[in-house]
């Protein structure tokens, strides 16, 4: 992804109706848009915001699970959790690279995350209180992420679509290892099963909120659908997730914490109870239980790593100077 030349470049375009129409024709013909192609400024901005948020979510998402690595109950679980958290870091890097092709630098994106200007998925502002949460996060949170991400593999912007293909290939392991953890607990002692149920109770609704507001209240949905950045609406994806997940919970003998949840024969899917959107907006706006801790942890990592970045650059400079002197 040849982005270096683009960083800081002025992405403004002359957006005449002819230009927008020409662009839309390419989108409608399922042509992929590549970084140096002409594109409306709004398309570029939407993607920078979306890919940036997505990348930040991967990086912040390492924290709630990193919390349990040292306390994993066996070496097998520890190795899997380490690999999963390392994957999340990798996913963040693929995505930052994709965003950088649009002319925004890694440093700018990092600063926006640390200053609170850029958002990340609300789900990571909830605490991971028990080992069962490692299972539930993999099963539900990664499960919801997969629902979101599979259609993104066909996103109209080439670098984002390519990054998502890599991410999706790796994500399936995350969900399966999570489900296996929950299954082990659900089939264990009554106390272990209760721990799994408690975890499901806490994560179910925040997982449904991951798909974002209802279609009627979603600001950016229509344009994103027209530009084929999004392929399904928030509510469509949420419905797919519920329909896929309810039987998985039934298999475990766990109860979804929604008294209104019931099969609707006519629509061939489940109906669910009302979602607490006040809670969603509170958490998105940074009032989630863990919001301050998450940003504090990222800021500490960035600040504590400053000397490493500086030393690495100084070392590279010294080697370059020595090489020139030797020639």
């Amino acid at each position: 992804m040849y982005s270096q030349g683009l960083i800081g470049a002025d992405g403004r375009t002359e957006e005449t109706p002819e230009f927008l129409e020409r662009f839309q024709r390419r989108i409608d013909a399922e042509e992929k848009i590549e970084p140096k192609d002409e594109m409306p400024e709004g398309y570029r901005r939407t993607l920078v915001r979306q890919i940036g948020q997505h990348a930040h979510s991967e990086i912040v998402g390492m924290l709630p699970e990193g919390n349990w690595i040292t306390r994993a109950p066996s070496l097998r679980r520890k190795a899997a959790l380490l690999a999963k958290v390392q994957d999340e870091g990798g996913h963040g890097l693929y995505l930052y690279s994709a965003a950088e092709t649009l002319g925004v630098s890694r440093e700018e994106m990092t600063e926006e995350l640390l200053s609170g200007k850029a958002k990340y998925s609300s789900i990571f502002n909830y605490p991971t209180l028990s080992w069962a949460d490692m299972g539930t996060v993999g099963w539900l949170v990664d499960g919801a992420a997969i629902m979101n991400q599979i259609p993104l593999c066909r996103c109209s912007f080439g670098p984002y679509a390519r990054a998502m293909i890599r991410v999706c290939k790796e994500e399936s392991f995350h969900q399966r290892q999570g489900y296996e953890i929950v299954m082990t607990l659900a089939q264990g002692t009554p106390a272990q099963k209760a721990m799994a149920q408690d975890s499901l109770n806490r994560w179910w609704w925040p997982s449904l909120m991951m798909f974002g507001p209802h279609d009627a209240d979603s600001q950016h949905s229509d344009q994103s659908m027209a530009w084929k950045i999004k392929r399904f609406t928030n509510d469509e994806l949420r419905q797919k997730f519920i329909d896929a997940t309810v039987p998985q919970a039934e298999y475990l003998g766990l109860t979804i914490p929604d008294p209104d949840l019931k099969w609707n024969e006519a629509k061939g899917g489940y109906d669910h109870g009302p979602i607490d959107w006040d809670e969603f907006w509170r958490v998105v706006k940074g009032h989630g239980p863990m919001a301050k801790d998450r940003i504090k942890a990222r800021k500490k990592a960035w600040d504590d790593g400053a000397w490493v970045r500086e030393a690495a650059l100084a070392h590279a400079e010294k080697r370059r100077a020595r090489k020139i002197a030797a020639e």
Partner: protein
Amino acid sequence: MTATTPLWEVFIRPRNGLAHKHVGSLHAADEVMALQSARDVYTRRGEGNSIWVVPSAAITASDPDQTAENFEPTADKIYRHPTFYEIPDEVGHM
């Protein structure tokens, strides 16, 4: 703000006999760290057995605005393709 860390393009050969293929990019201070990061970021599941890293600044790309004049002329040169030529069936496979 400290100096920015340079960008590198990463190419991986999935196995011997195939060409190195572009897989993505990363930031690293020098080529040694770029190779190490490329191994960690892009080959966690046996994706390849050889890595190239190239400074992104060293890549010269064709201009998308000239795509038509660069590449469209080949479309009407159908005589460059074997199926342009009529060979009787009796001659057999050629």
